């Protein structure tokens, strides 16, 4: 069995493809520390999403109230993670609560149906608070969506087998093997990339704008022609979104008529219609293309754009237009991301580690083999054969389970080589004792194996406990160590007890020695 699953590891890729289907093809996966790559742990800003949702709710409340015939109320405010609104007319409070409750649509989750938010009135003040279930639901939606977007973006990089997985409540682990530039991955993954088109306020006092003052219903956004460190040019943009980047169907890197790098895009039917409408009514006025929190460019509308496609030019390098096109195609992230942990190993360091680990394993192995043979004679040879079988089986188990081999994992294997002989040492020492106690060879061997068994189990179960805890609490490479250690322990007990016993018993039956040299 062990040989069967280990065999593919000795083949190269071409030979692997030629193998018939019934042969196992799974090779040992090398961890990032051995093959090189980028490991990034991101935190998803759920808080930020929740805040946005509250702002959204606050903005909708007046419409809901007016539709329900409640006309006099104070401007809604956000306080303690809830939206509060004060109704001026006490008689209308019940009416307002009913309308808002109806507006709070139920969410369906795996656990059942829940209200999106609760509506409570105390006096004339009505408070709307998102329920825990709705928050939880939103959190998992945001995370799932983020992972999907990240996957699309990374797939565009054309790398092999990236790992993108959720970790805990608000984290995403991204591992990209074979890449040694973390900044390239970060540029692609970490950007929200929400593209929006806004009209620019033209009747704003330039001096007020310079001081950062913008009218209500507008927002202040800067353009950075010289990069983020340079001087920003402030714009007052209408908060209302003219067209959203979500309505793009395609985006590609291109060059404009002056041969400057640009991104060409196409709207879907809805986006095209909105854009045509807006450009027709605003000829001669500037509009702004906003990406996240900066203005990329603010061209003046020369003529209505009815084709449903356009171009974004800005201060771009070809690489940047390429990245931006990928981001726009993949879609915007639903939340901001932040890097918590970053680890990059260059491929050549990984290769060095593999070689060092292999050398250490071979030399350690030879040392142990010689020592055991010297100590126990022919019994030692049996133990050595068991040890070699053990090693092959560890490799087989790692391949079969698809476990990841890391540098500490190699250390785990080398350590197992040293410790694996322990079971045999226990048995052989026991046999020596029995021989000394005057038993005949056959009985001595028999007693040695059966008496050592309890000790072997006790001793190895305790080590197994330690390695399981290590797996539970460890992370990354340390887990790799725990896996190889645990597999090594189980395999070593099996080979030491069963395999050597078989060999020793066969040998005894054939030779029938009168004394044992052990």
């Amino acid at each position, binding site marked *: 069995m062990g040989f069967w699953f280990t065999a593919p590891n000795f083949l190269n890729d071409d030979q692997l493809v030629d193998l018939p289907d019934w042969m196992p093809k799974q090779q040992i996966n090398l961890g990032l520390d051995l093959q090189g790559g980028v490991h990034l742990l991101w935190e998803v800003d759920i808080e930020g999403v929740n805040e946005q949702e509250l702002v959204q709710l606050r903005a909708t409340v007046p419409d809901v109230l007016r539709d329900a015939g409640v006309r006099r109320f104070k401007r809604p405010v956000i306080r303690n993670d809830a939206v509060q609104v004060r109704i001026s007319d006490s008689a209308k409070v019940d009416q307002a609560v009913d309308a808002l409750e109806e507006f709070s649509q139920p969410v369906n989750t795996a656990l059942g149906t829940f209200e999106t938010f609760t509506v409570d009135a105390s006096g004339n003040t009505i408070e709307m608070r998102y329920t825990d279930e709705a928050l939880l639901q939103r959190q998992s939606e945001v995370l799932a969506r983020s992972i999907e977007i990240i996957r699309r973006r990374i797939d565009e990089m054309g790398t092999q087998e990236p790992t993108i997985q959720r970790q805990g409540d608000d984290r995403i682990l991204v591992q990209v093997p074979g890449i040694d530039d973390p900044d390239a991955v970060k540029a692609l993954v970490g950007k929200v990339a929400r593209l929006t088109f806004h009209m620019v306020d033209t009747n704003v006092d330039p001096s007020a704008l310079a001081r950062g003052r913008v009218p209500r219903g507008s927002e202040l956004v800067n353009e950075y022609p010289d990069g983020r460190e340079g001087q920003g040019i402030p714009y007052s943009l209408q908060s209302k979104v003219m067209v959203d980047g979500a309505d793009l169907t395609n985006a590609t890197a291109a060059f404009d008529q002056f041969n400057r790098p640009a991104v060409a895009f196409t709207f879907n039917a809805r986006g095209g219609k909105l854009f045509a409408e807006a450009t027709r009514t605003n000829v001669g006025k500037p509009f702004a293309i906003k990406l996240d929190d900066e203005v990329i460019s603010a061209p003046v509308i020369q003529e209505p754009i009815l084709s449903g496609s356009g171009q974004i030019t800005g201060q771009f390098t070809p690489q940047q237009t390429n990245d931006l096109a990928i981001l726009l195609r993949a879609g915007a992230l639903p939340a901001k991301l932040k890097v918590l942990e970053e680890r990059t190993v260059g491929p050549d360091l990984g290769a060095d580690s593999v070689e060092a680990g292999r050398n250490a394993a071979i030399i350690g192995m030879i040392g142990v083999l010689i020592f055991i043979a010297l100590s126990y004679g022919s019994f030692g040879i049996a133990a050595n054969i068991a040890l070699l079988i053990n090693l092959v089986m560890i490799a087989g188990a790692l391949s079969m389970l698809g476990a990841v081999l890391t540098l500490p994992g190699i250390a785990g294997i080398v350590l197992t080589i040293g410790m694996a002989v322990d079971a045999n040492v226990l048995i052989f020492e026991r046999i020596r004792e029995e021989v000394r106690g005057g038993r005949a060879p056959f009985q001595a061997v028999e007693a040695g194996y059966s008496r050592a068994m309890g000790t072997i189990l006790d001793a190895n179960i305790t080590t197994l406990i330690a390695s399981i805890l290590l797996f539970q609490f460890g992370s990354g490479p340390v887990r790799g160590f*725990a896996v190889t250690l645990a597999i090594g322990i189980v395999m070593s007990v099996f080979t030491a007890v069963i395999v050597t016993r078989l060999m020793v018993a066969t040998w005894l039956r054939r030779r029938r020695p009168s004394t044992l040299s052990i």
Partner: protein
Amino acid sequence: MKTLKLVPQKTNLQFIPKRFIAYVISAVLAVASLGLFFTQGLNYGIDFRGGIVLEVRTEMPPSVEELRAEMGQLGLGDVSIQQLGGADEGTDGYDVFIRVETQPGGDEAQEIAKDKVKARLTDLYGTPFDLKPSILFDDLTTPEKNEMVESSIHYVSEGKVYTGFSVRREEVVGPKVSGELIEDGTMAVGFAILAVLFYIWMRFEWQFGVGAVVALVHDVLLTIGFFSITQLEFNLSIIAAILTIVGYSLNDTVVVYDRVRENLRRYRKIPLPELFNTCINETLSRTVMTSVTTLLALFALYFLGGSVIQGFTAAMIWGIFIGTYSSVFIAVPFLLLLNLRREDMVPAEDEE
């Protein structure tokens, strides 16, 4: 055939009568370890302290003093620079290890600091192209050639491009993650010890469980002391090493305890101290054999396994010595101290 025996057959060393010497030595070492831990502390690695680590390979021999001075000027607080071997060891460059402490200002601040360090390295050694000296100038694209010509540090010799530096490894751990890693590491060691206490309690008597745990705590303390005194980097893999030491030491202890249990049932007349001494001597050959084979493998790993896991193997080697010592000199004698009586064991009529 004459076989090699490290421990002669008729060994009868006086372990138990000399136990008080061992107690004193261990107590002194344990207290010293604790003292060192609280005064000198540990040289925490990036996993636990957060911060930035860069392993950089330069084409030309770097001046550690110059680098230290340059990095010191960046205003990033404590920056440590260490040279790892040299080009003469068969590598094609010089490896330098740069460690920057955690920057105040949360997770983003770490990234900014890392960019600063890389920018300064670029000033010193040239653009970090990922090119090897084996790359031919003619194979480059035009923009790459232009950049190379502009940068005075890249040079072309006999058609081969020599690049400034390449980043072999870079790690940034933010304060949030490092805090959690400390928590997880401590929990892992704590739970391991508890689980073991429980297991041994189930299989033996409570005295054995306590004795084993005292030995384990002793091992953990002395390993921490070892790291405090050597100031070797204490990182996640050292937690793994400590857990493995716990597993190994326990393995040793259980083997001797097993023998104690067996002999307690077999020889009902021999006084306990003498009986325990016999048990240790009977298992001594095995104890030494297993330690030697494990150490053989570990020394191979230490000398050949590369710099990344050297700290880990150093911890393990130390741990094998300490673990072996503690099962012989602490775990077994402690049974006497805990007042283990024959009656605790013998009535248990579960003869196999």
